[in-house]
């Protein structure tokens, strides 16, 4: 019989776990069902720790809750959160075979579990004498080392199989950032983003071209669609602002004071 505190913990957690386990079956949304499983797993881990199997409890959370259930959530999110299952039988007689196989597995499990004989328990003091993880490691890597290696090989095989099955041969060369950049340079166009349309004190609109450093309108700054439709407007050019490359009536060398008086007048 468990000690007082452990019994209290069990009777608090066990009903909650049963409710969460029912929630897994009854929840409508896949994410809620996943949450229920997570809750059951965390409670299970707490019970393991309470029963002085801290390694098992923590590994349960790290591996099953942290990685496996997270992958489930990931897949649910990727596939589409509201995707509902199709209940149409794709293979004929699939349900019947499923039931038969399930019953067979149940029968085998009952048969095996009914005949299993556990050795006499040695007690937690002996089992956890050199801390719980060390005791576990000694058993796993001495008595059960063969089983452990077989599991390891199976897992590696599964991982390699997954890699092989999802591997595909490229038909064309990979287009990465470098190839894109090379093509851009080879294309001979503008390497920078195109200039934004004109923003002036008078106007701020998509259809007005910007002016370049020399005061000429940049037609590429207006959306191509507007240009094709002929909806482009002309740039507002102040007649008093002279283009830098325009020699003007008095030639390139303009006397600054003269210009000031001209503007004031």
């Amino acid at each position, binding site marked *: 019989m468990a000690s007082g505190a452990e019994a209290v913990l069990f009777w608090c957690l066990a009903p909650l776990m049963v409710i969460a386990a029912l929630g897994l079956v009854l929840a409508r949304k896949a994410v809620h069902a996943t949450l229920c499983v997570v809750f059951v797993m965390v409670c299970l881990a707490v019970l393991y720790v309470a029963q002085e199997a801290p390694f098992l409890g*923590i590994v349960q959370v790290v591996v099953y*809750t942290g990685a496996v259930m997270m992958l489930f*959530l990931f897949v649910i999110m990727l596939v589409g959160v509201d995707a509902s299952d199709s209940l149409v039988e794709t293979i004929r007689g699939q349900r019947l075979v499923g039931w038969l196989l399930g019953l067979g597995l149940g029968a085998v499990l009952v048969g095996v579990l009914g005949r299993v004989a556990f050795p006499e328990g040695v007690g937690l003091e002996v089992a956890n004498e050199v801390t719980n993880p*060390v005791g576990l490691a000694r058993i796993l890597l001495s008595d059960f080392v063969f089983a452990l290696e077989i599991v390891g090989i199976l897992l590696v095989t599964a991982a390699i199989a997954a890699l092989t099955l999802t591997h595909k041969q490229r038909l064309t060369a990979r287009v990465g950032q470098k190839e894109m950049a090379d093509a*851009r340079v080879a294309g001979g166009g503008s390497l920078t983003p195109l200039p934004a349309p004109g923003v002036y004190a008078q106007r701020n609109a998509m259809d007005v071209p910007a002016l370049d450093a020399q005061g000429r309108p940049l037609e590429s700054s207006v959306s191509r669609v507007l240009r094709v439709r002929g909806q482009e407007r002309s740039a507002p050019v102040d007649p008093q602002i002279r*283009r830098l490359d*325009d020699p003007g009536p008095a030639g390139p060398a303009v006397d600054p004071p003269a210009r000031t008086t001209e503007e004031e007048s």
Partner: protein
Amino acid sequence: MVDFSNDTIWTYVVKAVLIIVFLLTSVLVAIWFERKVVARMQVRPGPNVHGPFGLLQSLADAMKLLLKEDITVRAADKFVYLLAPMISVFCSLLVFAVIPLGPQVTIPFTDISTPAQLTDFPVAVLYILACASLGVYGIVLGGWASGSTYPLLGAVRSTAQVISYELAMGLSLVSVFIMVGSMSTSEIVAHQQDYWLMLPLLPAFVIYVISMIGETNRLPFDLPEAEGELVSGYMTEYSSMKFAWFFLAEYINMINVSAIATTLFLGGWRAPWPLSAVGDGMLNEGWWPILWFLAKMWGFMFLFVWIRGTLLRLRYDQFMKFGWKVLIPFALGWIVCVAVVRGVREFQGWDLQAVGIAIFVVAAVTLLVVQLIPERTPEPTAPPEPEAFDAFAGGYPVPPLPGQRLPASPRAGRPARAGIGAAPAPDEPTAHAGKEAHDE
């Protein structure tokens, strides 16, 4: 492990409350610290109005957050939407329970002597990993429950990111376990009496530091909330208190991973070398060690801010490639090295110096031999002639196989444009009438 046998339920309660108070105030200071340091790096003053040196700025910001309107979006799944920030904060608060802040201390005004650590058990570091992996549920569920696209994208990214970086983080911690022979935090600190584990396990330390930044979603790995792409990722639809909880959890997580790095690699609460020799180890006793612990922890916090102020955000595919193709294989290789060295020392009784010299000699000889072998230049092979392609091989339309080239489509009249910013095609309309008229 340290001795907790003198502790009563009251010492546990007092320690737990102190840890929570410490974490909450640390977050306020951390926000101020981050803003101030980043500001200095960008040559501006940073917060300097409220309180001395702007210290009260984060307090004011926190009050503002609490008083803001609490919005629940209509598409949200209400229960999970509320649960997600709680999970985040709860899991982030759990980690400090096993961090040793100092050795045995005497509580002032009493004669109770107790370790400066809430608890410890043989799998303490695994417990930390478990808390971290549960904390991700907050982000993932928050993103899903918001019922909106950007948060969902942020959540999916965050799942992939945390799973892949937790692998690298776990592998880097394994080498610490192999060295120390224990997973209890206090034993790991006790093992670092002579030297910090950072020195022999430098590669593992580097991997840990990289993956801890990925784990806490900080720049340059802040892809789940990348402002430029996802508004703010999983917390886009959160406001007021619920947003504050996410914010709190993020900063507590930074403090957590810094504390773990300090404990596992930088000697925990032990004084740094010249100080540790002062007065016959006087500075390693009593309340002094908490100072060294905090100094090391805040050093890591500074590193976080420094990296944020220096590096740009990675592209998502680069980030995943870095995690899976660089960090994890490297960490695996390093574990093999550590395990071999440790096994040789433990089971063979060989002279490690002789083994090291032997490895060095073998490596040098191999290098020399490799240098002497004349380099064989690969014969330039002409690119294989494209085979004839039968688009209806076997009676069905089939795609070209490698080495076959698709014949040009008869409809390919338009000249192809190379890349995005290429020059416009010649048949595109160029100058528009009436435009040149004003161009004078």
